[in-house]
């Protein structure tokens, strides 16, 4: 309820209200982006771009979804745009570097690198995003399709194929 009031004030041009909103949601957006990119540095750039886009588009938020979901939609599309601009998905060498970086973070916190994340790191960014949105954040296929600007069927097959790969990798690892 309180957030709703802040959003309305922000939409009316209240700078302080918008600043509060951005400050509150920045960690959430950053953590989401780290999960889908596996790259903390890139995630930071994308999170900042997401916040800037939010400043420009705040009046377009219609309240049909939660504010955090709206931010996730913006972040997801910015991420997809970045991937497209590179005209290719991160090649395996880039992915390896990213994986090493995030593994370093894990080691820094004295955590083992979970097998499931190893498997998740082996699928493409679009597949990973769809799986995370469905199985971690709990969005429906339709919501994910809107967020990723893709047909529901495509999202469904991405998730299905991704899960098959992850399961196989996990089974191989267990054996």
């Amino acid at each position, binding site marked *: 309820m309180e957030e709703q009031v802040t959003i309305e004030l922000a939409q009316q041009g209240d700078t302080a209200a918008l600043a509060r909103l951005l400050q509150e949601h920045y960690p959430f957006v950053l953590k989401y982006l780290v999960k889908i990119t596996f790259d903390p540095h890139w995630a930071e750039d994308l999170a900042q771009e997401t916040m800037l886009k939010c400043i*420009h588009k705040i009046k377009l938020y219609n309240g049909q979804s939660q504010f955090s979901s709206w931010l996730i939609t913006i972040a997801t599309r910015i991420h997809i745009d970045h991937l497209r601009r590179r005209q290719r998905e991160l090649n395996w060498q880039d992915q390896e570097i990213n994986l090493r970086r*995030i593994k370093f973070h894990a080691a820094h916190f004295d955590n083992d690198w979970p097998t499931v994340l190893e498997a998740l790191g082996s699928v493409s960014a679009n597949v990973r995003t769809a*799986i995370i949105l469905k199985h971690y954040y709990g969005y429906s296929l339709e919501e994910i399709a809107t967020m990723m600007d893709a047909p529901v069927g495509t999202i469904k097959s991405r998730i299905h194929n991704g899960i098959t790969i992850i399961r196989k990798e996990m089974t191989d690892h267990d054996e």
Partner: protein
Amino acid sequence: MTNNKERWEQELQQGLDQMGGWVTPVVADVHMWEQIIVEERRSERKKLRRELSFFWIIAVIVLILGLISFTQLPFVFVVVQVGALLGFPLYWAFKARKKVTIQ
């Protein structure tokens, strides 16, 4: 099968939860965010003003060129231009219609 699904889902949740913990976001204070917002709005207004000025300059140039050519050129030349402009589309339209009736 179901257990298997539950297991990987659970591991995914735990793994991603852990991953969230590895990142410690440096969150700027509200005052800093306010400055960013003000700066962004200012640059947006500047960009809009620049684009609008560019649009008006081009529009005025095109209008002036149109007026000059219309007032300075001889009447016959204008008639020929208008005739050519209308004539070619009409000619092609009739030609196409003829083809359809033959078939």
